């Protein structure tokens, strides 16, 4: 039989097969396996909650509650969806509910949910050099990336987070946030362009200074 060999020779397939097996077992009542099932996604769940709540303690609390809710509803999970997407969607719902509760009574800006009109023009056109992903090992770089993301308006930050950090597709991002596909695309474009400019500015302040770029060039 070819299939078992394919699984053995492909770690990605093996991981997926293991995940499906774990889901089936947890659905049959072996709840003690649930943590093993969600462990690969715990960082992403936390990040999704943090992008919405912007508070470490709240994000951790919501991440835990989302995991427990996923466990309570595991029988409703259907194999046609990705488990990670399902988990992230539960987390985003929990985080949005928490935010609504905490902002109850506060008046939100009328413009909060609208897409800005007009185009966003990039500001920096320096020669681009790729930043090696090893740079992410440096805390300073991770911090600057996190700060740049946190500085975006909520509507841009949430869309970017779900699409480019959590790897939901455009349609899933739209469904999770309850906005149109067109809005997701507009916000994603702006978020990506703004982050590009923000990080290019960071280069001028020297936080990629240890990178082996040629003199006078910028990372992008």
């Amino acid at each position, binding site marked *: 039989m070819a299939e078992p060999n394919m699984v053995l020779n492909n770690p990605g397939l093996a991981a997926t097969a293991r995940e499906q097996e774990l889901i089936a077992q947890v659905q049959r*009542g072996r*709840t*003690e396996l*649930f*943590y093993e099932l*969600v*462990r690969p996604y*715990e*960082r*992403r769940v*936390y*990040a999704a909650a943090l992008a919405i709540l912007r508070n*470490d303690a709240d994000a*951790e609390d919501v*991440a*835990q*509650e989302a*995991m*427990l*809710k996923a*466990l*309570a509803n595991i029988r409703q999970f259907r194999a046609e969806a990705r488990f990670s997407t399902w988990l992230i969607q539960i987390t985003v719902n929990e985080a949005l*509910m928490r935010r609504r*509760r905490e902002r109850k009574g506060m008046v939100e800006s009328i413009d909060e949910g609208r897409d800005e009109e007009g*185009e*966003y*023009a*990039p500001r*920096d*056109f*320096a*020669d*681009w050099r*790729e*930043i090696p*992903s090893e*740079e*992410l*090992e440096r805390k300073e770089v*991770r911090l600057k*990336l*996190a700060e740049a*993301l946190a500085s975006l308006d909520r509507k841009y930050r949430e869309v*970017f987070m779900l699409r*480019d*950090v959590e*790897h939901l597709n*455009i349609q899933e991002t739209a469904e999770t946030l309850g906005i149109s596909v067109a809005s997701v*695309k507009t916000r*994603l*474009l702006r978020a*990506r*362009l703004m*982050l*590009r400019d923000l*990080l*290019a500015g960071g280069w001028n302040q020297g936080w990629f200074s240890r990178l082996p770029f040629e003199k006078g060039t910028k*990372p*992008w």
Partner: protein
Amino acid sequence: MVNKDAIRCEQVWLEVSNYVEGDLDAGLRAAMDAHFLTCAKCRSVLDGMRNVIQLYGDERMIEVPAGFSRRLERRIVQSTKIRSRGWSVWSAWLIPAAAMVLIAGGIRIASSATVPHPLRSEHAQPARNIPSDMIVVVSAGAKDFHRPGCDAIHNKEQERTLTAADAIRQGYVPCVRCLRKYLETTAAGRTDLEREGEFPLEATREDLDRGH
């Protein structure tokens, strides 16, 4: 043959995100390909955007607080322990407990015939015996906290999990059905309540029948 002038830089900036997504029709994509070959500005925009996506898409970007995994695992394990006990464990202590309540209730009804006691609602009783770290659930718009799975939980779509200590701190009161055994109820209180018909002994039997 598509040339660079077939599309302006401003139009490229509008579509660059869709280009990265592979979400363009063939004609526009070809025009942008040609534009990128000769326009350094737009190539800078494209490359910078790709770099942003690559950096943020790397899981090492995500930092979690120290001890996050340990705390998450502990909370999940606590929750799964509660779930795995299930009905079999509930029934194991509920049956003798219910029997004892019935016996005690009978004795108190008899004794209350001669000694008057003030009326007390179980809702008003402090839940001093509830372990502070017990995982309980509350739901939006309700005042009670419950053990997970309690039939008396309203609005289950909006329930959240927390410890009993937190629930009490936040002003919730224990559910008189699923947390009955922890309620500090005096013998007199139960007798009077039963007499008032608020919590008849039959309710305990019904709970038992429902596996509660």
